């Protein structure tokens, strides 16, 4: 995520009304780019095909084609650094939470959701992505510096050898 471009959020829910509501909310509150899908399979297909840049993924839990946990696990294979959020209206939360621990999700949001909570969870998730990217960048810098240093060391050794 570059500093001044708007973050992109991928949102999957088999219910169009949920997608529409969230789209409207972010249209009025934030300038996120939203990619919305009613089909998790279609979302995976697009992710695999056009390496679209995605900063955060939100998925419903109960969907006819594929449940949200399976979907998010597949997203993780593809985009390990991107925070994944589960949306759950499931009557029995416990199973969902167990699954969440197994897949290592960033957060879960319960339906009916509160927009303010949603906003906060997403903002924190995006912040996490930014920090991870910065960390990645720093690690690369350190590695580069170390490589240069060992080159210099080799040169020195060559001179004195």
């Amino acid at each position, binding site marked *: 995520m570059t500093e001044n471009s708007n973050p992109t959020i991928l949102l999957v829910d088999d*219910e169009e*009304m*949920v997608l*529409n*509501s*969230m789209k*409207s*909310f972010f249209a*009025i*509150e934030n300038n996120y780019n939203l990619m919305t899908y009613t089909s998790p399979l279609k979302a995976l297909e697009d992710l695999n095909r056009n390496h679209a840049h995605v900063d955060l993924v939100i998925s419903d839990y109960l969907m006819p084609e594929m449940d949200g946990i399976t979907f998010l696990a597949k997203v993780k294979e593809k985009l390990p650094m991107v925070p994944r959020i589960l949306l759950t*209206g*499931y*009557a*029995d939360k416990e199973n969902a939470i167990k699954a969440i621990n197994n897949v290592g999700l960033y957060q879960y949001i319960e*339906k*009916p*959701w*509160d*927009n303010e909570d949603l906003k906060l969870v997403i903002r924190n998730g995006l912040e996490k992505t930014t920090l991870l990217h910065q960390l990645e960048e720093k690690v690369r810098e350190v590695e580069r510096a170390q490589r240069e240093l060992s080159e210099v060391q080799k040169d020195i050794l060559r001179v004195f050898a």
Partner: protein
Amino acid sequence: MSQLIQSEKMAALGLLVAGVAHEINTPMGAIHSNNDIMTRAVAKIRKLLGPAPDKEISRLLDILGEICRNNEIATDRIMKTVRSLKNFARLDEAERKTVNIHEGIESTLTLLQHQLRNRIRIVKQFGDIPEIECLPNQLNQVFMNVLVNAAQAIQDRGEIRVKTWTAGDAVKISISDTGIGIPTEHLSKIFDPGFTTKGVGLGTGLGLSLCYKIVQDHHGTIEVESSNQGTTFTITLPLEA
């Protein structure tokens, strides 16, 4: 036998209720969120209009704002009812759970609200009680049955007092009403299966016998005291079942 059929019915009802609650949640979530978006949009429009907006536009925005507030109250009510239904039905039927029974009492009272509203004052005197191991949805049936009876015993206006406290190794719950009371000659029969004083189609005569059975399964007791000033049911549930 009838108790078996009754509890099977309750289990089926529990599944149905949980399914319906889940089914309502998604569209409810969308409406709840959309209403919040409308509220935010109205606030933004007001800001854009500046300090001296057109009178008619301002009036229309006031109406929209009022509707949004109204919708919020309405959706909150539905969500609260759905939560109570889910809580009441508790899918984990067969599972014993360690819970605070105040939760069950609160859910039951919420579901009964329409029967009580304006007519009956609820006084809650909840004591500091420990959590107990029990079958929560079954105990909820007990609270429901006793509370419905209490509400029906009050002819016009009155009060239902729900009290909880700890007594030794047991938790006690008493539910008192200011209703017409139970005639002395009926007191010994009220827990008998099939005994009812309600008209045909109004009572099955199974409610209190089921309560008796459930409390017995929890190794507890249910007792009744009654006069023409009202009736008190006292349920005693041991901490260690």
